[in-house]
């Protein structure tokens, strides 16, 4: 631990640990308000259909039903991530576009009545032809999902940096591989919920959200309210992973129902509805071409992708840009081309899931590079070292990378895993694989165009100095931002973590912050908090200077003690100075805000992927494959991260464990599957197979020394970065074990088994072919 710090760099226990182990922590679904109603949304049973009529009269007559609403009862304003892509309505007006699209909603006295009422709503549909595959969706003659988007093209990207064609022409070796991703789902264990209370012209929404600010912004916009008349309060949130970032529909429907009934309305999704609403990871089809020189130095890269966006934009334009933007971060090359089509299909919309658009393309690139290394006869780890990005460099798509210890990460992972001894020497069926990754520490630009700062914070010292409260819009969804930010506040003030209180993520009482996404809070919210803490400290030292009759510049404060830097015996406690401050001058308050510098280039889509700082990671996994069944037994995984200065090592490791767990699930098991009519076949936690405690291998999480100059105390992200290399690293380990490459995710037992079978058949086929040739001779 760094001696210069008293509070940061330590694994202090989480602020909310105690309330969570005792069951005291209240999540949105745990709250009750007097006179509260229960609401639910009726969704479409068809993947694509015209709405002919909706008859709610029977439902309305059911005793206990207080309101039934459809598109006629709510504003018809479309919403979505950016004005050019606003394509979603609160309730469908003319058409439904996927099984699960929102059609109507009911509020009633209790859950049972709500469900009965939903069944009584008569919707007449004219079923339309539907399309479920992105490649088919963009073919001539495919059913048109949105009138405004010909060929079902939601987003089309063509970026070209340097001269890829020339690089390929000059390359010693050019290779192309095609990979297939899968649709996965965030699956937070807490389902989405929202309680809306419309009272006296003001709307209050308690919500399981990752960004109270976005929800406030969208709700105010939809209902034509002033931002100040909408208050969004985050309760404890049971995990988000991207799915709770954008509006879920529950807050819109709940707000409308509450306005009509004049009562609080609790809305929630059950597990199947969670899957149907979705907004999980896009399935991408990824063609990767690389040209290398004879030493394996990458000369040019072409990423040519198609993604299944589902029925709406959701956060998908960002996902589409991220998919290509982030590929340039880890390796140093100059020529890069990125083509992408995000297609509409009649499936639930996809959005942002941990790592956003990046993990699948990273899988493709890392698996592909292993094949390139094999073609050249170079150790795949050595190939990465030869290409690894160095600090203070700029990517071809104009991201400025300051700190970067990727080389050190790879070297340390090599050492920890025993790569040198193991590579090529493991018994048959056993293999070792490597992949690397990188991620933003906060998006350089907010989701919607605004010049608001990215983050802001206020710290108020209590009147007697016995506590200080941090007010921040930053959003703790379990990752521990409340804890980390309180550590930062205490460090900046010269105070104790134990005496910190926090009020966070309430749009009325806390200053603006964009919330939990793009791994932004440690750096961005942390910057604002540090500034606020320093402002408190400065005022405190001035007061202490008066009390001690010393120049404030001579004073400092640490761990609650104000002291003179020159005569250490002269001290005052933080508390007594703070109290005196209040007596003489009123509240002792510090303020801070953070706006990143202008980042990135000028080309179309240039902002996506910009960040003040990037994390880097190398992962190695060792697997054992059962040649008979294809079963993958993961023996151990090593993650080595460059995430700058670490504020709380225990929480950081927790993020690595969780990210790796998610990456492992997506590597081997997780996939949302649909029938031929677009209905989800495994919309539950039994059949959507996420890893259990018995599936998890031994995980070693290590760090390399690093300091980020653009960040408070040199911090960077960790929460999403560790998901990114995992799928590639498993793919490479499986290949090393068995010599078969599975080109589609998940790398399921069955696919591995099939690949092995094909290999065997091919080999025996070749042998018999060879035998026949021999016979002829």
């Amino acid at each position, binding site marked *: 631990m760094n001696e210069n710090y008293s509070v940061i760099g330590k694994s202090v226990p989480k602020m909310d640990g105690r309330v969570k182990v005792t069951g005291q922590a209240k999540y949105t679904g745990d709250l009750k308000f007097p006179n509260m109603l229960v609401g639910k949304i009726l969704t479409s049973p068809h993947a694509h259909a015209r709405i002919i009529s909706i008859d709610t009269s029977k439902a309305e007559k059911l005793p206990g039903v207080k309101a039934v609403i459809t598109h006629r009862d709510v504003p018809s304003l479309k919403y979505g991530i950016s004005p050019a892509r606003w394509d979603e309505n609160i309730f469908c007006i003319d058409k439904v576009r996927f099984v699960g699209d929102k059609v109507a909603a009911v509020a009633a006295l209790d859950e049972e009545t709500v469900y009965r009422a939903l069944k009584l709503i008569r919707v007449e549909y004219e079923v339309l032809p539907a399309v479920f595959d992105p490649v088919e969706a963009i073919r001539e003659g495919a059913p048109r999902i949105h009138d405004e988007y010909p060929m079902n093209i939601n987003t089309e990207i063509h970026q070209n940096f340097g001269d890829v064609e020339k690089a390929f022409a000059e390359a010693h070796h050019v290779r192309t591989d095609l990979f297939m991703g899968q649709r996965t789902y965030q699956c937070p264990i807490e389902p989405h919920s929202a309680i809306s209370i419309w009272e006296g012209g003001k709307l209050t929404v308690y919500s399981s959200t990752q960004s109270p600010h976005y929800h406030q912004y969208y709700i105010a916009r939809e209902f034509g309210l002033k931002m100040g008349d909408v208050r969004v309060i985050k309760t404890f949130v049971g995990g988000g*992973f991207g799915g709770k970032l954008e509006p879920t529909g529950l807050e819109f429907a709940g707000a409308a129902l509450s306005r009509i009934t004049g009562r609080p309305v609790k809305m929630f999704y059950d597990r199947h509805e969670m899957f149907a609403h979705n907004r999980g990871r896009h399935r991408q089809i990824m063609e990767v071409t690389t040209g290398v020189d004879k030493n394996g130095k990458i000369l040019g890269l072409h990423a040519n992708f198609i993604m299944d966006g589902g029925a709406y934009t959701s956060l998908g334009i960002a996902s589409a840009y991220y998919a290509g933007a982030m590929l340039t971060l880890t390796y140093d090359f100059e020529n890069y081309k990125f083509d992408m089509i995000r297609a509409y299909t009649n499936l639930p919309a996809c959005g942002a899931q941990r790592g956003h658009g990046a993990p699948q393309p990273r899988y493709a690139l890392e698996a592909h590079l292993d094949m390139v290394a094999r073609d050249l006869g170079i150790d795949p780890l050595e190939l990465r070292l030869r290409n690894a990005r160095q600090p203070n460099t700029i990517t071809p798509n104009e991201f400025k990378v300051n700190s970067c210890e990727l080389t050190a990460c790879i070297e340390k992972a090599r050492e920890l895993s025993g790569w040198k001894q193991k590579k090529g020497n493991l018994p048959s069926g056993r293999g070792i694989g490597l992949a690397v990754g990188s991620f933003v520490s906060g998006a350089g630009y907010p989701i919607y165009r605004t010049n608001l700062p990215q983050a802001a914070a206020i710290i108020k010292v209590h009147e007697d100095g016995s506590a200080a409260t941090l007010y921040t819009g930053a959003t703790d969804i379990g990752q521990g931002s409340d804890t980390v930010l309180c550590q930062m506040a205490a460090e900046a003030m010269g105070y104790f973590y134990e005496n910190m209180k926090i009020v966070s993520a309430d749009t009325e009482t806390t200053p603006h912050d964009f919330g939990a996404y793009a791994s932004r809070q440690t750096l961005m919210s942390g910057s604002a908090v540090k500034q606020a803490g320093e402002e408190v400290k400065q005022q405190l030292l001035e007061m202490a200077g008066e009390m001690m009759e010393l120049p404030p510049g001579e004073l400092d404060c640490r761990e609650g003690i104000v002291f003179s830097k020159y005569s250490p015996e002269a001290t005052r406690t933080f508390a007594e100075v703070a109290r005196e401050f209040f007596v003489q001058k009123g509240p002792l308050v510090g303020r801070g805000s953070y706006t990143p510098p202008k980042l990135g280039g000028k080309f179309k889509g240039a902002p996506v992927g910009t960040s003040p700082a990037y994390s880097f990671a190398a992962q190695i996994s060792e697997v054992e494959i059962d040649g008979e069944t294809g079963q993958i037994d993961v023996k151990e995984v090593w993650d080595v991260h460059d995430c700058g200065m670490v504020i709380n090592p225990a929480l950081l490791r927790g993020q690595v464990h969780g990210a790796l767990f998610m990456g492992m699930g997506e590597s081997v098991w997780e996939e949302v599957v649909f029938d031929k009519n677009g209905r989800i076949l495994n919309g539950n936690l039994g059949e959507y197979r996420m890893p259990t405690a018995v599936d998890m291998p031994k995980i070693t999480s290590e760090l390399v020394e690093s300091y980020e100059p653009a960040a408070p105390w040199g911090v960077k992200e960790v929460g999403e970065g560790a998901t990114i290399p995992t799928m590639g690293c498993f793919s490479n380990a499986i290949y090393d074990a068995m010599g078969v490459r599975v080109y589609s995710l998940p790398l399921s037992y069955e696919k591995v088994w099939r690949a092995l079978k094909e290999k065997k058949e091919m080999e025996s086929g070749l042998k018999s072919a060879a035998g026949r040739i021999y016979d002829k001779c």
Partner: protein
Amino acid sequence: MEALTDQDGIKRYLVNINVNGDPYTVIVKANTLLVNLLRDQLDLTGTKKGCELGDCGSCTVLLDGKPVNSCTVLAVEADGRGITTIEGVARSEKLDKIQESFVNNAAVQCGYCTPGMILSAKALLARNPKPTEQEVREAISGNLCRCTGYVNIVKAVLEATGD
């Protein structure tokens, strides 16, 4: 079990249960789930709901000492029996060893799986005070956690077995 018929002709049952040492008499329908009785009627919201299908374990409570998914148990089945929910694990101010170990080992992230995990772990340690790592993993394999990769949870349970 005593039954009453309401105005719609639906039978209601009088259920006597003991929750965390306190006796309660409640009226439930035949299809009322134990999890909803606990959460909605007794306001014991520490017991969570993640799926209502018996898949996730976030609704785990101890029924006569045995861990059950309370979303798969009918309230009437609990008549005359003893239930421990997360609210009954700590003895007033003092946390149970397992709870303490969860806090100290950073085994809690979002906390939504935590009550169920702790109760599954508690049941395990009651029947097997010195479990192996594999036994811990098996005991909590019905409790899904999306945040931690189970690493620190397993560590916390194992550490709670120490003296």
